[in-house]
């Protein structure tokens, strides 16, 4: 009778269907309905990896998704020539786990930061990201539009910081400063097995300071915390950023178990052991707890911001399709 009803099954009726229970309306069945719909539709996730060559980007992707999802595995070229310009290569996979289907797209950026003169190397990347937003916007604006607009927007950009142990390089700062405005950036310290724990902590602290000093807002962004509970969880994450990760797709025998790791003469680094590296935290953040949140922030904040700019700029310009360079979105 009251508005706040908790479904209870009276003891005399515990063998019968809950529908005979008086006070149970069945509103919470909508959760099950949503779940069914989600399972049927499947999910999409687009991750971009950015960093100099040799930082273990492809290996990390393979480790994250426990399969050969990286471009290298797909293209099959063992020897890699560093390209003369930045290329954007995206590869899609259909993966499935316990009935949940996901279309994972890994976007690789070979050539980033590898030239002698790296000026404006973020431009092709920003252009790519904005192109995805543009594609989505065009489809959304159609009169006759698809039931489900295919989502190719970049949800998350993992930025690989080389493990120098000192501080961020100007390239890192420039890139993250510009891109944190259009996409969720998750910075990671690559190949963290070259740093001792103290060096790691020092490095992380230095990086966090520099990010703060430059006003760079990486994921999870403070301003998008929804409530106190969210803030609490995200604060803990923000204290750990950037995650110091080690990637590996090779298994070794450790204490009688087969574990993913890197074997060296002085020991085996277990990838999923949080005492060794923070890969597990990264995986949990990206996949197990915050994946939906990452997608939401992309669609309701970054994409909306792009849309506002786009619609405004073409309302004020005399001719519609003037050259709106992605650089115009930069500050």
């Amino acid at each position: 009778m009251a508005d706040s009803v908790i479904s209870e099954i009276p003891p005399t009726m515990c063998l019968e269907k809950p529908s005979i229970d008086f006070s149970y309306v069945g509103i919470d069945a909508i959760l099950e309905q949503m779940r069914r719909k989600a399972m049927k539709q499947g999910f999409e996730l687009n991750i971009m990896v950015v960093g100099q060559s040799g930082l273990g980007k492809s290996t990390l992707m393979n480790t994250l998704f426990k399969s050969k999802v990286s471009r290298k595995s797909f293209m099959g070229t063992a020897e890699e020539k560093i390209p003369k310009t930045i290329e954007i290569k995206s590869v899609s996979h259909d993966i499935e786990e316990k009935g949940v289907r996901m279309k994972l797209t890994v976007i690789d950026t070979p050539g980033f930061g590898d030239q002698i003169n790296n000026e404006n190397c973020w431009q092709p990347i920003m252009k790519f990201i904005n192109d995805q937003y543009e594609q989505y916007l065009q489809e959304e604006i159609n009169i006759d539009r698809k039931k489900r607009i295919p989502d190719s927007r970049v949800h998350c950009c993992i930025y690989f910081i080389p493990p120098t142990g000192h501080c961020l390089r100007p390239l890192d700062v420039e890139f993250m400063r510009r891109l944190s405005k259009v996409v969720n950036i998750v910075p990671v310290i690559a190949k963290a097995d070259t740093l001792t724990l103290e060096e790691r902590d020092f490095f992380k602290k230095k990086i966090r300071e520099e990010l703060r000093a430059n006003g760079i807002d990486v994921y999870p962004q403070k301003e998008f915390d929804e409530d106190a509970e969210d803030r609490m969880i995200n604060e803990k994450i923000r204290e750990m950023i950037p995650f110091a990760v080690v990637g590996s797709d090779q298994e070794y025998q450790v204490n009688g178990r087969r574990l993913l790791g890197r074997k060296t003469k002085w020991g085996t680094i277990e990838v999923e052991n949080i005492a060794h590296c923070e890969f597990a935290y990264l995986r949990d953040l990206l996949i197990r707890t915050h994946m939906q949140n990452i997608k939401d922030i992309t669609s309701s904040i970054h994409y909306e911001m792009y849309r506002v700019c786009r619609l405004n700029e073409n309302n004020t310009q005399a001719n519609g399709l003037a050259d709106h360079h992605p650089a115009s979105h930069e500050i």
Partner: protein
Amino acid sequence: MQERTMAATEIARQAGEGARAVPLSGHVGFDSMPDQLVNKSVNHGFCFNILCVGETGLGKSTLMDTLFNTKFEGEPTQHNQPGVQLKSNTYELQESNVRLKLTVVNTVGFGDQINKEDSYKSIVEFIDAQFEAYLQEELKIKRTLHSYHDTRIHACLYFIAPTGHSLKSLDLVTMKKLDSKVNIIPIIAKSDAISKSELAKFKIKITSELVSNGVQIYQFPTDDETVAEINSTMNGHLPFAVVGSTEEVKIGNKMVRARQYPWGTVQVENENHCDFVKLREMLIRVNMEDLREQTHTRHYELYRRCKLEEMGFKDTDPDSKPFSLQETYEAKRNEFMGELQKKEEEMRQMFVQRVKEKEAELKEAEKELHEKFDRLKKLHQDEKKKLEDKKKSLDDELNGFKQKKTAAELLQSQNQQPGGSATLKKDKERKNFF
């Protein structure tokens, strides 16, 4: 340099187009995605909007009360409404951790008029208005779609009067106008008035009439195996024959919701007595999400497409699209506002004119009155003067007469004294006097 980069992107994307299935060699953890999605929705809350269309007195409010197990609102409506109005009420319900914002819209006065030709119009206008509000929000430049309170109608329960024969023409016309705008679920109201055999015939008649008139009612979806079976069975039971009641009656040793008659008791939740349980099952427990999805992906899209095409947009020139859509929409809206303003100006001017005229009239009248007053005053003064003159002359006469009288009296007294000279004197005086 940039061209090469673009070309590289193109090629890579083509290669990735046919996404390949890749087996996983361990537990990754994205099977928690449905949970993440559900959790986010739970935090956000849900909303569901039901429209009840049916003649007054068919038990619409009671059925809503019974379905959602609460007492919603107000008193039953009178039968003397001049037109069909839509009254909508929003309630916040909660069950375990699910918060539902339920909006129930009632058609007040449906079927009460003598001329029912336009009855369906206010319903169609209402539904369109909700679509329009959503479309406006979607077209805004700065929009907040994720926190928008969706008022679009997700399900329309059409209440059919339990005549036992066939659909009324009002029902057919209304349903035909609504079937492309909303999910229609026809139900037979107050079905305890019909016997079982009559009910079966009635249902068949209704279904065949709907089919022959091309009315598209909502079909419960059968593409998902988990619910395909129950949905297809239920599709065969449409329209549902329902009985609503919020009163409880003791049957055996438990209290059930029922309607008590001298000849027996109709139990609402007894599937042998009526289809209430089926309706609740289908509407809430199995297909609520599908109803919402159909509203968004089918009915709303249709409305949007028609509206945009009506305003003259086409998909064929992609270059000018994104901006002209927003721009022209704004322009048209401004145009409309401009017209409204012009009309307002005209009306205002007319008003001012009328006021001036009236003022002039009144001034005239006032002037006349003044003149009249002046005239009267003058008249009055003249009269007064005349009177005074007359009075004066009368006074003079009176004085003369008095003098004469005094003189005569004096003469009389003198005559009585001896001495003739006095008479002479008197005579003289008398002569002098005359």
